[in-house]
């Protein structure tokens, strides 16, 4: 014990390892699969799951009432036609970016440290995109007709209106969700087979067995697996960039001052990754603590994530700066007023909060000590998530609130239904995460094993 600690200290002085020394193939498999198969479900899990489940039920109640009454139960109005629903949609979609980025792009870039966090990051992506995907549907005036946004064959030969970014959204988000799901599931297959083989419960064996799709671990299986995984990674990579680009088009295509700007696509993508990594950290830090996975999710992961956040945060800051600059430089009276309104209008407090959360607070990540401190990172990640939510609020609400005709200016006040729906989706997301860590291996077992020194094959 003492020795290994000694080694850790010396290792972090250069670079923390991706996996703590002392593990063997068996110990990795044991440790990860035990969480699902043998470890008793803790009271903490039940409490956490219970609270999330209550929040989810609250959301279902709010959604039920919404379907009964209409979107008028929310705070939306004319001129602010989009409110919390779209803010939350963009926020969740943004969070859903980290998983695929970690899995696909880092895979292609051969960043093997990602192996420890890619599985639950992907799960997080799926759940976040699912939460996001609900909002555009819920915010419709007539949600039961949502399928009119799809180009399905119909007797009237009537198609969606393809110039609308909302139609692009439908394609972008549904494609992204599908690819993410496939990618996640294919990555799970070898581990599902492991669980099948190890579980003692008959039902669990059957279910894992079915999900494992007959995986036997033959060389041919592995070869096909590697090919398909790589192909999917190749497919997913452009999606990471395209989804939020398309989401940003929802705004950039509009003529509303504060929306109509060309910087939106890169700035949205950067923001998405920013918030995605913040969410990864917010999940990873407690998980590694409660499940004792410090060996697998090491300081190296925390550091790397913090660096990504720092980098994307600076891109986002650049976006804000350019927006403000263009408000002045364009000489357009409406853009200029939008800038003024952000700085001095009724929602100015939130704009300053946004600057604090997204630009100023994260600068502490320049300090190495904080980059390594889980509590600090957890806190900063939380601040960033709040900040990114505020950013979407500023973009959606504050731009719409005062546009071209002074006579039509208005205000937006969220109602309790807005809050219930928003907090409810967090509950839904957490619920799914709790279930995920309980029934599936949250860290990729076989990929972790490739990180062991024993896996190094000498040519």
């Amino acid at each position: 014990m003492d020795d290994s600690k000694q080694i850790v200290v010396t290792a972090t002085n250069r670079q923390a390892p991706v996996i703590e020394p002392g593990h063997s193939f068996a110990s990795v498999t044991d440790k990860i699969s035990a969480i699902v198969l043998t470890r008793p479900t803790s009271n903490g899990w039940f409490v956490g799951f219970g609270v999330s489940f209550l929040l989810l039920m609250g959301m279902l109640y709010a959604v039920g009432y919404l379907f009964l009454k209409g979107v008028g139960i929310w705070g939306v109005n004319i001129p602010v036609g989009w409110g919390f629903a779209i803010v939350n949609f963009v926020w969740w979609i943004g969070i859903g970016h980290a998983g695929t980025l970690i899995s696909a792009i880092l895979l292609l870039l051969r960043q093997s440290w990602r192996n420890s966090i890619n599985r639950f990051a992907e799960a997080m992506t799926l759940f976040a995109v699912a939460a996001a995907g609900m909002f555009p549907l819920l915010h419709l005036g007539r949600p039961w007709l949502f399928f009119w946004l799809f180009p399905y064959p119909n007797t009237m030969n009537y198609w969606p209106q393809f110039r609308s970014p909302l139609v692009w959204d439908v394609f972008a988000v549904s494609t992204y969700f599908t690819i993410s799901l496939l990618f996640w599931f294919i990555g799970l297959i070898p581990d599902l087979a492991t669980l099948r083989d190890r579980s003692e419960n008959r039902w669990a064996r059957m279910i894992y067995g079915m999900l494992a799709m007959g995986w036997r671990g033959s060389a041919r299986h592995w070869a096909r697996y590697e090919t398909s995984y790589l192909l999917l990674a190749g497919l997913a990579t452009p999606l990471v960039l395209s989804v939020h680009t398309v989401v940003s088009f929802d705004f950039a295509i509009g003529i509303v001052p504060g929306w109509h700007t060309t910087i939106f696509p890169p700035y949205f993508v950067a923001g998405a990754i920013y918030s995605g990594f913040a969410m990864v950290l917010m999940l990873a830090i407690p998980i590694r603590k409660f499940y004792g996975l410090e060996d697998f999710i090491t300081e190296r992961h925390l550091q790397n994530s913090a660096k990504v956040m720092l980098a994307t945060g600076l891109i986002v800051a650049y976006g804000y700066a350019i927006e403000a600059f263009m408000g002045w430089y364009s000489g357009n009276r409406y853009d200029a007023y939008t800038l003024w309104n952000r700085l001095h209008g009724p929602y100015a407090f939130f704009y300053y909060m946004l600057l604090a959360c997204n630009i100023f607070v994260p600068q502490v990540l320049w300090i190495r000590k904080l980059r390594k401190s889980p509590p600090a990172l957890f806190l900063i990640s939380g601040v960033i998530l709040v900040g990114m939510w505020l950013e979407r609020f500023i973009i959606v609400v504050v731009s719409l609130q005062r546009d071209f005709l002074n006579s039509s200016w208005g205000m937006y006040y969220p109602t309790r239904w807005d809050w219930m729906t928003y907090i409810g989706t967090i509950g839904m997301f957490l619920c799914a995460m709790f279930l995920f860590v309980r029934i599936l291996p949250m860290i990729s077992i076989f990929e972790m094993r490739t990180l062991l020194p024993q896996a190094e094959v000498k040519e």
Partner: protein
Amino acid sequence: MKMDSESTNQHHEAVCPGKKEKLVQLQTERPALDLDTVRARVAETKGPEFWRSLEELAGSAEFQEMMHREFPKGASEWLDGVSRRGFLKLMSASLALAGMTACTKQPLEPIVPYVRQPEDVVPGRPMFYATAFELSGYATPILVESHLFRPTKIEGNPQHPVSQGGTDVFAQASILGMYDPDRSQTITYLGETRTWGAFLEAFRAPLSIQKGLGGAGIRILTQTISSPTLADQMRSFLKAFPQAKWHVYDPGGRDNALAGAQMAFGQAVETQYKLDAADVIVSLDADFLASGFPGMTRYARDFASRRNPDAGAMNRLYVVESTPSPAGAKADHHLPMRAADIEGFARALASALGVHAGSGAQQGEAQRFLEAIAKELQAHRGSSVVIPGEHQPPAVHALAHAINQILGNVGKTVVFTDPVDANPVNQTDSLRDLVADMRGGKVDILIILGGNPAYESPADLGFADALKSTNIPMRVHLGLYHDETAELCQWHINETHYLEQWGDTRAYEGTVSIVQPLIAPLYSGRSKHEFVAYLSGLSEASGHDLVRSYWQKQHAGQDFELFWKRALNDGWIQGTAFEPKQVALKSEFGSPATVDANALEINYRRDPSVFDGRFANNGWLQELPKPMTKLTWDNPVMMAPVMADRLGLKSEDVIKISLNGKSIAAPLWLQAGHPDKSITVFLGYGRTRAGRVGTGAGYNAYEIRYSAMPWLATGVSIEKTGTTYKLASTQGYQTMETPVGERPLVRTTSLEDYKKDPEFAREEEPDADETLYPHGNGHIQPEGWDYTKEPYAWGMAIDLNKCVGCNNCIVACQSENNIPIVGKEQVNKGRHMHWLRVDAYYQGDRNNPRAHFQPVPCMQCEAAPCELVCPVGATVHSTEGLNDMVYNRCVGTRYCSNNCPYKVRRFNFLLFQDWETPQLKMMRNPDVTVRSRGVMEKCTYCVQRINQHRIDSEREDRKIADGELQTACQQSCPANAIVFGNINDPNSQVSKLKAQSRNYSLLADLNTRPRTTYLAEIKNPNPELQA
């Protein structure tokens, strides 16, 4: 020409047009009826008695026989076995016929349709009938659109000289009043339902006792009556009961105008103005451009006709006013002044013009203003006019008359006639006498014909209290609602609405209009005419007979039938306008009132939307933004911003207003342009028994209104209560100014500058091809659609110079397009549904700002930003340039509204439309979809009207002529400010307007290429005052 068919088919006379066809069939199948018997029977019956056939009505033997047979003739022939097929045929026919009979109630007497009558009733095609809406005795001549005997829309009567097509908001909204489900529907005794028979029974004995006493215990209280028939009935009643007394009270009574006329001429006269002949108009606190001012429709049109900077000389309007109003907004020079100071101003002005009015100079700005006006008036003798405000004391009226006289305006711009009011007494005194009699125990039978005196009478008279406490044995209230007064009377008789009854009324210049019913009374009910006839002993006289027989007496010629039908057809009786009256001016104008320059004064005004409270339950009017404040559902207290600053108050603070020991709490609204040391309260709110819409809205200003000073009082004190009250405004900001510069939304300049630079309003518009998407895009059209090759390209021009901000277009649009109301809470959330709004902007000094009105319908952009963002193609462009909304396709993303720079799209956030109330279903325009929850809606340029005219014109193989087709807003605009038409026709009126140099597009720099454009506002200031 329509009359011909009526007169040739004599035997059809007794039924309405819709029954004709069935009648003809009856004639061929059955033995001939004795039509005289039928007619006699019909004359005997009253109200909607239902008869199955004329035979039953005539009580014929055949009918009796049929009633005793088990099956009708045709049916019994089938005894020997009906085939299944035959049975089904019979049943389906029966069902279809059953459906036909269930259509609607029809009035029994013939009413004569206006010009656009089809051969007969064509289902789906409306008919238009002329009638008149009356408010406080003054008529607004209207046409009523009727779909299968259901009146659905009020329009101005274009051929009537007073309306010329224009209406005011009250007339427009009255259709909703008729269908109001909260109207009282039965006769009640102490709140319990009774029959008419029961009322007769109960009333007979007291009335016969009074007969013996000459009616000494009878008091009748009416509102202002201008109806010649009703006035005649009242007089004959008073002849029969010589000791009975007729009292008149209207909370908006014109006592001051009357007293002013008495002072000036020694007799009651009506003053009319000919504003089209006036080069200089001086208003002394007269809001002659607001709904409710007698003759407003005509005045607005005449005023606007002289506001064209390119043709003829523009008039110049000076307004001295105590409460900001549309007239003040349109003024070229506006001087806020406390109401109490205006008399001094009038005296000084009169003195300056040579009238011995006994007062000296004004101070500072007022003096400069006065000198300029005096000079202008001198220079425009015979072509100027001074209009006194109804709220001003008699002396101001008298002085205005004197000024007009001395300037030689009388006979040119000012005409004096007999009063329209049939009983021109001082109404406050009249009510005071009544209350004294009530308290003195002299009243045995009190009959209140319309009005709501328990709510609206002056606080010091204590009418409600007298009604409650004096135990008058017989208190009868005839009214549309079971209101505050009905509550205090034993008997309440439900009255018919003017659209359900026969009557007559006078416009402000005296012309009589016959009021025709458009529908049989929804809840039976009785009209005032019928009720007074009953009092006079004609127990079952119908309104029709009363009005007709009165005019038969008046009409000297032989051709009464023609005269009558002509009157019904046209909507007015030829030659009934009053003759100008020669009056001699006296020279005594009383002594100047002493005014304490520092005392706080309180002004009372009827609310611009609900008037004196009678429209409190009218949702359209409650939700109609008031012209100056854009507030809905409430009556604020207006105060000048400087005064509020001094007192540390702000808008929505609740203040306590105390006067003569009584006090009310009311929310404050800071109104730019309001004079200092003065507040204005609005009457008509705080109703306790108005109905589901009006009850509980606002505060009741009548509680501190006193008979001695009904419009203006001093000695009022205000104090802050510390609480606030949320007011619901439909307009976000009332200024075009922003911290980064002013936005050129309403473009305005002076006449002088306009002459120098006529193109001032046109900013550089971007080239049409500076867009990602070619014009007229949309997937149903090829790229770069060329509108000019189409037969029509619809466009609209709105002349901001003419618009007087009266809001009439909003109500007209609401009525035409089945637009729901949403309630105060939803208005506060920003969800009002008006497709057309009138923005009011203030500019400059907040103590005396310039105000501008800007009606904003959909701009129908050629490059519409809304269209390209709709994911389902629910809003698309038509080949004629309309931005169409496909309700059925809308899924409600609201992206279109976000992307609409004009924010003219309205969304059904909840189920705003009333799908339940049966009365409201009858009211809806069948040509317009009733929208449900979750869809976007917007102005369509009244596409249903376009299509109707397209169908008509194509059948006649011609193009739609210019002016034939009018949108609802355009049709009823009293000022003629809205012009719609085909911009592909260079000779159309709208094309000519758009060709003017004043024409500009709102937010033109966005390159949306709106089809709705504006003509910039040109003021005509006096160069002397400007310096």
